[in-house]
């Protein structure tokens, strides 16, 4: 081991310790972080300089009232935001130490490493359940039947959907219930082995039972993935997340361990939101 790399490691450990001491981030590493992230739609400034870190193998919830910019924030994390006409992004999003907005980074490769589940289930209507699950693999050029079968089963299991659809894999995904469709979309995102999964209010269109199923799968996911979930549902944030960020009017108001945020919010705005005074 060279001197250089030893000092790097020492620095790294020190940095981590510092983070865990100062920001209550326990012992996990930072997987994804933003640095002064700003986003615009035309002239409207939606994000006003966000600095936030997402620890590895943890679930981080982003909550806040409608229009606070939480959805825009996670859409910036995998460079989907910039696909909207007139949308602009400034600042940095750092994945494993690399700014994904630097010119030499290919957004296509980034989006595979950072998967996404959307507000409304959006399975591909012309594909079967199986084809939906392995759509990303086929994109990447995987043709081997055995691999496809194995990955389809694995990701459908991880999304807690396998037992319900294992006999109907060739049927259209549109025949599933809303909750099942959303779990299919989760399986689809998992199949490409992303490192981070972004979820944009994945349960907002679902009933409590379907929501419970999805939350169950989210809890299991953090073993393998880093999860970022946007929600306006306080109970959901409390149930599924390890860390919670509270946003208001395009700014990050407070970030910390979920327990701390809910039991002892430092910012009066956060407290008001949690006690239900607005939002």
């Amino acid at each position: 081991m060279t001197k250089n790399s030893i000092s790097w490691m020492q620095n790294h450990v020190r940095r981590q310790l510092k983070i865990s001491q100062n920001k209550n981030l326990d012992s996990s590493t930072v997987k994804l972080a933003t640095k002064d992230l700003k986003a615009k739609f035309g002239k409207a400034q939606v994000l006003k300089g966000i600095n936030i870190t997402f620890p590895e193998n943890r679930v981080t919830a982003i909550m806040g009232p409608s229009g606070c910019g939480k959805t825009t924030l996670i859409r910036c994390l995998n460079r989907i935001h910039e696909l909207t006409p007139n949308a602009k992004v400034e600042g940095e999003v750092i994945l494993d130490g690399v700014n994904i907005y630097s010119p030499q980074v290919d957004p296509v490769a980034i989006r595979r490493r950072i998967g996404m589940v959307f507000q409304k289930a959006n399975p591909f209507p012309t594909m079967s359940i199986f084809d939906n699950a392995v759509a990303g693999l086929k994109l990447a050029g995987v043709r081997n039947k055995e691999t496809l079968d194995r990955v389809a089963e694995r990701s459908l299991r991880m999304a807690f959907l396998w037992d319900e659809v294992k006999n109907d894999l060739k049927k259209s995904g549109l025949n599933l219930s809303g909750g099942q469709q959303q779990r299919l979309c989760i399986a689809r995102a998992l199949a490409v082995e992303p490192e981070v999964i972004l979820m944009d209010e994945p349960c907002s269109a679902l009933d409590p039972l379907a929501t419970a199923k999805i939350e169950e799968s989210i809890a299991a996911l953090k073993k393998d993935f880093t999860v970022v979930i946007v929600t306006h549902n306080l109970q959901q944030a409390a149930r599924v997340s390890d860390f919670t960020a509270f946003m208001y009017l395009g700014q990050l108001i407070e970030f910390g361990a979920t327990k701390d945020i809910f039991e002892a919010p430092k910012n009066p705005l956060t407290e008001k939101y949690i006690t239900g005074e607005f939002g």
Partner: protein
Amino acid sequence: MTQSDLPASISLWRKILNKLMTILVIVAVVLAIIPLLLILGDVFIRGAPAISIGFLTKLPTAVNVHGGGIANAIVGTFTMVGIASLIAIPIGIGAGIFFSEWSSSRLSMVSGFMNDVLTGFPSIVLGLFVFVILVATTKQFSAFAGGVALSFVMLPIIARTTSESLKLVPNTLREASMALGIPRWKTVLRIVIGTGKNGLLTGILLAVARATGETAPILLTASTSVYFAKSIFAPTASLTVLIYNYGTSASQNWQTQAWGAALVLILIMLAVNLLVKLTVGRNLTGKRLEL
């Protein structure tokens, strides 16, 4: 997760294919636009020398006798489009209102479907139909028969535009009017005259433009003539049939005049289309009305 099932990076092939398809798509756009520029350019370049006061105001001369004009064809075209408008506008608007205000009735659905089918109909079949009912029975080609044939071209366009533009009028307006105790017929007419009139105008203008450019139905019903028609029950010249006859003739003089007439025709069409785009904007003209 132990061993990855995916390739570590995006294959070069996918990147190349992506660039290649972008290029192909742009090539397609260029290929689609070139003919338009060529056609417009050629009509202006070849047509402009033929245009003069005499060309627009004189009657045709015999083959290869220099001079001569297309005055009778211009008058003939306007006569026939006028007759067609008199027939098609009231019926088209009436049917269009019915499609929009009674949209769930069975008559509305059947007739609306027929109307759509009629929009895409070969105009020569409409000409053939009018020939059978009006020309073959009276043994007389006429501007009247030509106008009737053109009215069948205009009718479905007007009906469809009318119903589409009235469907854009929010229902709250209807409800508010009815809630005031204004009877339905007054409500409908007020909405039509007030809110939907731009859309109606668009439909009429587009239909007029389309009829002005039609050849086949007139060829079979009005034939042509080298004089001003004595009445609307006599064979009548039109710009389009004149372009067809002159353009396929061997006479150099006539060929030049065909380009001149084409320029006059295209200027009329452009003027009408521009008028539509300028006055009404995208939301209505964006619907595929000219189909």
